[in-house]
């Protein structure tokens, strides 16, 4: 039974997708109900997987493997470890909340859900694949629907001094991501060839003892290739443009999950290219730190509310990259926690920005004012997200960033200090933003806006619940990933040191 849980987590969205596909158009309520029902089951399955994993910590309990293509001995191999269990939970949460938020969409709802669920299938697949080929297969699959999701259902950013169309955002995102995947193609093809294991399984590649000379050459391909999706500076510019142009729920999935695929990919490639990782991590540390500072400074300069959140994502992904770059247990664990924390937090941010935009039809920070009066609940939730973002203790961001800073401090104190400065800048722009749009005198235009409705409130509360839960009981999240990260760092990285030494 258990070996079918992981395929099931893909099958449920596939069935939902097919069900929606075969319902005639103009049956919006039915389509919405099916979408919500499907995402609810997926969410519960994800929760089940996470809880079961964290209770047993048995790496093999969900193993599923079949031969898919004999010529290349590609296996469809699913499995779960602490990191992917947490990520599966993240996908489940964001999928469910995003679906609820999307029910507001009125135009072409059927096609929207088909593409949206396709995106979800892609991200689920990445996190449960134990085979490099399928990892990449699902990774690319997640990119496929993005263009249409943004270009058809997105919104333009139109300011006097600055305007970007949604088509621009969509095209840029798509081309940059596919360009970066060229690097991953090269990496995968040559790794498979050099490893000479006749297998794409991560474990086989990791045990292949790939020569360190080759690792040092090829690791940057994976690092940059995946890094682009993680918003690595200076290849990050697609991400704010894409986030802003995307419709709310797609922004949630995109900033909340899709960018994590990049970080997760780097983590995975450390496993089979440890020597390359050791050699190049200084670069990731520097670029990650630039991400933090540059992203925060850019966020400060934005006028469009969604761009602020978009750049703050770039900045926060910088912490993830810094954490990964430490290659020690505490930093890497921090990076994984931050992936989860930021995923939840940014999803909440985008959901609330969607709520505000829906009511005011403006995302201009200059014109929004005193929104806490008419929209008390939405405002409160926004403040919680903001406080998470600047790392207030008791909320999820604090634990993650603390771990990362400790980890970075052990490897490079200077960068750690810069990272803390980045957190301070974050505090400045987040507090300024909150002060400007929620507090102060409310202008008459906004005085009679309706507050958040129930369909928007449920997802926001779910997200907030997890933020707070991780803030006050981080142990539930740290323990399951701890073992996996230890295994990764202590076995692969240290083993390699021994070999070299």
């Amino acid at each position, binding site marked *: 039974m258990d070996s079918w849980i992981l395929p099931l987590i893909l099958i449920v969205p596939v069935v939902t997708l097919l069900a929606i596909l075969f319902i005639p158009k103009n049956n919006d309520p039915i389509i919405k109900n099916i979408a919500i029902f499907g995402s609810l089951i997926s969410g519960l399955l994800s929760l089940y997987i996470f809880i079961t994993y964290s209770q047993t910590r048995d790496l093999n309990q969900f193993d599923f493997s079949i*031969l*898919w*293509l*004999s*010529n*290349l001995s590609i296996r469809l191999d699913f499995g779960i470890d602490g990191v992917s269990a947490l990520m599966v939970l993240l996908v489940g949460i964001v999928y469910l909340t995003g679906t609820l938020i999307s029910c507001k969409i009125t135009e072409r709802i059927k*096609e929207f859900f088909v593409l949206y669920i396709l995106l979800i299938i892609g991200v689920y697949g990445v996190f449960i694949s134990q085979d490099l*080929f399928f990892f990449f*297969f*699902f990774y*690319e*699959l997640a*990119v*496929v629907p993005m*263009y*249409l999701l943004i*270009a*058809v259902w997105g919104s333009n950013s139109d300011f006097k001094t600055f305007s970007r169309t949604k*088509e621009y955002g969509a*095209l840029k995102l*798509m*081309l940059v991501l*596919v*360009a970066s995947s*060229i690097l991953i*193609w*090269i990496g995968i*093809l*040559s790794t*498979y*060839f050099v490893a000479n294991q006749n297998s794409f399984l991560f474990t086989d590649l990791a045990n292949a003892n790939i020569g360190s000379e080759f690792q040092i050459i090829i690791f940057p391909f994976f690092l940059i290739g995946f890094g682009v999706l993680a918003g690595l500076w200076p290849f990050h510019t697609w991400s704010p443009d894409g986030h802003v142009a995307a419709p709310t729920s797609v922004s949630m999935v995109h900033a909340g999950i899709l960018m994590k695929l990049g970080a997760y990919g780097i983590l995975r490639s450390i496993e089979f290219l440890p020597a390359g990782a050791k050699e190049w991590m200084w670069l990731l540390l520097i670029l990650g730190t630039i991400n933090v500072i540059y992203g925060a400074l850019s966020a400060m300069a934005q006028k469009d509310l969604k761009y602020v959140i978009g750049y703050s994502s770039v900045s926060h992904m910088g912490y993830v990259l810094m954490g990964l770059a430490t290659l020690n247990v505490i930093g890497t664990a921090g990076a994984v926690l931050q992936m989860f924390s930021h995923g939840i937090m940014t999803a909440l941010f985008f959901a609330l920005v969607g709520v505000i935009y829906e009511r005011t039809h403006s995302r201009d920070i200059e014109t929004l004012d005193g929104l806490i009066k008419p929209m008390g609940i939405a405002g409160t939730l926004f403040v919680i997200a903001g406080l998470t973002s600047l790392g207030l203790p008791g909320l999820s961001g604090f634990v993650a960033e603390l771990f990362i800073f400790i980890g970075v401090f052990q490897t490079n104190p200077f960068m750690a200090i810069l990272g803390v400065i980045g957190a301070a800048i974050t505090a400045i722009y987040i507090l300024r933003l909150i002060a400007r749009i929620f507090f102060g005198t409310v202008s008459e235009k906004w005085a009679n806006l309706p507050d958040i409705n129930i369909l928007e409130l449920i997802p926001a509360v779910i997200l907030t619940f997890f933020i707070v839960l991780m803030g006050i009981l981080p142990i539930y999240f740290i323990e399951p990933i701890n073992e996996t990260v230890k295994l990764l760092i202590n076995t692969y990285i240290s083993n390699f040191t021994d070999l070299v030494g």
Partner: protein
Amino acid sequence: MENITNNLSYLIPEILIIVLGFTIIGVGIFTRVRNKFVLPFISVTGLIITALFIYYKFDFGNIQTLSTTNHNQMDDLLIYGGLLKLDSFSLLFKFIFIIIGIFITLMSIDYVDKYINHEGEYYGLIVLSIAGMMIMAAANELLTAYIGLELLSFSLYILVSLGNDPEKTNESSIKYILLGGFTSALVLYGISQIYTELVKNDILNPTFFTSIGTYASQYENFPPLFIFGLFLLITGLGFKIAAVPFHTWAPDIYEGAPLPIAAYLATASKVAGIALILRIFSEVFEGSHSSLIVIVAILAILTMSLGNITAIAQTKYRRLIAYSGISHMGYILVGLATDTVDSYSAIIFHSIGYIFSSLVIFSVLVCFYNKTNKDNISDLSGLYKTNSFLALGITIALLSTAGLPFFVGFISKFYLFLAAVAQGLLWLVIIALINSLISLYYYLMVIKEIYVGTPINEQGISTNNLEKFIVVSSLIGVIGLGLYPEIIMGAINSAAIAVRIN
């Protein structure tokens, strides 16, 4: 030792096809058939019977994996003193040609009804050209291959000239006949050079691939006349698959030919060229001549890059598809430069994937053209609103050709490139990957028109069940093979082994 037989029963598929072709032409000429479904029905039924015959008679489903390195030559049959070779390679390709023929015939029904007066000739020549391609795939000797090539080309000359836009059709049919005839002459001249060279050296059966292979393997550097002959031969084949620099005909001809015939040129005729190229390369250039591989690699780079870069600037969808088809031949040439069993397998797989996605694209376009009579990419604007089914179909096919999962284009490119990297051709693969990115750009531009653009004419475009059936069944190929390629890998592997290890 290989089996040699003169038993006519092995030629039954070809005979069936030729009889079928003449029957259709005859019925078309001597009876005034008014129903548009009669001739296609005869044609499709005949083709299906032939396909089933091939499938059951020749134990086509016999599965081999690539680990079986020793090809059992007892499986091969040489017919008529070795003029034709009946192995899993030729059988697979015959099967492919017949399937394409069925699709093209079905796709043409409304088009022929609307634009073309010579129904009988149209459907009959498609069937006859299949016979030509079947001979090409089975040929074991240069002159037989040439006859197959000519049978195909002559049918195509007429089919191309049946187009409905007088101005463009005249231009393109004359161009095709002149260029095609010229290339045929070159090929024939090349064959004569090779023949002379072999006869001079007292080699038996001088036009047989195996004899040419034996002759070639004696030399480090080929004698000049022999090189000249080969060069002309390559030119002819390059013309057939529209590889740069022999590609210029393709966009013009696609524009003037009837749209289903453009689809036929893009799929069947190219794949027949690929089949012949694979056969000649594996048998003649056995023992890999490095200089030749460099030439193929250069052709591959030129073909991919020129095809893709020129495609960006196109405003007419037929020309866009023509150039994108050219660039796909570039990927095939990457596989040819790799020259291993794996890469042969990958080439065949990629071709099949290419066929299916092209069929989807063309069947959608034929549908569109029948209803609107428009030729520009910008006319596709807002197709999503006028017919979301066609929009979805062509989008999937375009994304598949761009190499995105879960469509067949992804795994076929992955396989092709992996085979190339295994032979140390990483640099070539990198160029191919960059080309994939470029192609994604112009496909996205088309997709953008379809989904984001506003329709010029709000009127919906209707599709009947037949059109839906064609699009859906070729889409099943694109998606099904992308999700589970293993299903045809057995047949592909046996074909690749049969042709590469001999």
